[in-house]
């Protein structure tokens, strides 16, 4: 038996219309014969052209690559590459909201061209050049007259419910999506949402009453051959759109939200640090940069403004939200803000733990920025240098890291509240431990500060 050199992506198994496979690191999508009519309509109706022009659908090229399963194949297409895959439980409020509005906009345009979305999973959206786009081209199918929207339940669970929870209760509830891989069950969302949310008619219908309906008709076989006119469908999409838009979020003040107003850098120190980071970045010549603890992305932009694709990670959803709103305002295409708790990064999830990748599986980055970070990991989180070093070395080739000594005022503040058990927290020990996994290329003290910036290379 000949071993195939191509490999199906373990997350791509649910849709009989086709699947993704990889060959030497390149991603292809096999389009099966069952999808043929839909694909032809997608192209011939002009919908593909319209959606890609409006940056709503991922563009693809038709490929001559051999299909992975030739017997069922119609075509092979090569979609444009997404540099960093992110998941809805890693998005800030507006990122999820914009993804929801993208789905609805696509559905509106699709109906104009006689097509409809058969899926509205949040995992079908990825950020490409700063904007949310549909990556599952095969979820578009020919619209059958009088049929209801088959993706309605998914839309409510993947988008409306989490947005409502984030808006009415707490923005951190998006993390529930980690446990509920097909969106938040509507009965669950109904129980969590406050009574005042029922005053929002969209939520009352699409979450509360929808959940009631799911419960009551659980075992029914719908005998009515549903008559759901196009006008009703448009009404549904319009109502869902109003519902999503009605959900706002007043950004609370968190300990990180006014970070840069409260730091201890003088103007000169700040400028010098920026100069050093930029210089070190230049020496590593990266294609992809990860900025850990990026806050609002001030230092991430030293890379992204040069056209280097940068992922700006931060645990604080308020900071990530600010960062994302700035991305939108400036129309930036090379920076992706993502919510990530470094002490508990996204794990592998889904069937056989293969549907959603862990953080490390999505790396390594060419260069990793760990600025103003180490004291929080060591002192606030009791992490020894060894553990930090071994984690970082798995995720990068070059490391730009800032050592913050005990004499620094921020560290003094952290230590003021607890017993100083950090006997090994000093520059000498830091260099000793990190030298095991990294080669220290540069060491530069930051002017008017007690902090030192390092450039290191993985051994």
């Amino acid at each position, binding site marked *: 038996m000949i071993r195939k050199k191509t490999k199906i992506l373990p997350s791509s198994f649910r849709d009989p219309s086709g699947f993704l496979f990889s060959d030497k690191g390149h991603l292809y999508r096999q389009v099966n014969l069952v999808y043929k009519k839909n694909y032809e309509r997608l192209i011939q109706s002009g919908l593909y052209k319209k959606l890609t022009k409006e940056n709503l659908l991922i563009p693809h090229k038709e490929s001559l690559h051999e299909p992975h399963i030739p017997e069922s194949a119609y075509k092979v297409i090569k979609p444009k590459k997404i540099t960093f895959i992110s998941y809805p439980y890693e998005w800030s409020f507006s990122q999820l909201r914009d993804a929801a509005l993208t789905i609805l906009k696509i559905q509106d345009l699709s109906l104009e061209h006689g097509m409809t979305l058969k899926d509205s999973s949040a995992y079908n959206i990825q950020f490409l050049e700063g904007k949310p786009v549909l990556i599952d081209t095969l979820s578009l199918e020919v619209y059958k007259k009088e049929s*209801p*929207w088959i993706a*309605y*339940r998914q839309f*409510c669970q993947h988008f409306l419910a989490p947005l409502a929870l984030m808006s009415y209760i707490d923005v951190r509830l998006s993390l529930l999506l980690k446990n509920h891989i097909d969106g938040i*069950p*509507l*009965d669950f969302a109904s129980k969590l949402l406050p009574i005042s949310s029922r005053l929002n*008619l969209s939520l*009352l*219908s699409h979450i509360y*009453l*929808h959940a*009631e*309906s*799911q*419960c*009551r*008709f*659980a*075992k*029914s*076989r*719908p005998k*009515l051959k*549903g*008559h*759901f*006119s196009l*006008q*009703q469908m*448009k*009404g*549904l999409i*319009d*109502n869902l759109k109003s519902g999503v838009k009605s959900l706002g979020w007043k950004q609370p003040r968190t300990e990180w939200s006014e970070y840069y107003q409260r730091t201890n850098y003088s103007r000169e120190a700040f400028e010098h640090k920026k100069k050093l980071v930029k210089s070190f970045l230049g020496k590593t010549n990266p294609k992809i940069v990860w900025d850990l603890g990026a806050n609002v992305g001030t230092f991430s932009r030293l890379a992204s403004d040069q056209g280097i694709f940068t992922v700006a990670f931060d645990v604080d959803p308020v900071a990530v939200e600010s960062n994302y709103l700035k991305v939108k305002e400036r129309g930036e295409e090379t920076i992706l803000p993502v919510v990530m708790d470094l002490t508990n990064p996204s794990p592998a999830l889904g069937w056989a733990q293969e549907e959603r990748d862990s953080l490390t599986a999505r790396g390594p980055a060419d260069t990793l920025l760990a600025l103003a970070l180490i004291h929080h990991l060591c002192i606030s989180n009791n992490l020894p240098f060894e553990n930090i070093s071994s984690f970082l070395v798995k995720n990068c080739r070059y490391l730009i890291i800032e050592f913050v000594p005990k004499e620094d005022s921020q560290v003094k503040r952290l230590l003021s509240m607890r017993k100083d058990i950090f006997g090994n927290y000093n520059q000498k020990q830091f260099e000793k431990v990190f030298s095991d996994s990294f080669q220290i290329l540069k060491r530069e003290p930051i002017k008017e500060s007690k902090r030192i910036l390092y450039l290191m290379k993985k051994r």
Partner: protein
Amino acid sequence: MKERIIQSWILILGFFAIVLFSPPTAHAYLDPGSGSYIFQLLIGALLGLTFTVKTYWHRIREIFGSILKKMSNDKEEDQNTP
């Protein structure tokens, strides 16, 4: 603004009707698919109506506006004729 109020009333009355006249809760194993399908059909009529109202709001307003104007003109005429 007024169109929103009318839409809201249509929805409120419709939903109360659905909630009041639906069968009691079944504590059955949850199969969300059929419930969502049926729910769409139930609210379909209301959604279609409110969307139509929304899209044709201006025309409806014009028609009502002209009817009211005609009524007040007729009234004036009646008052003026001895």
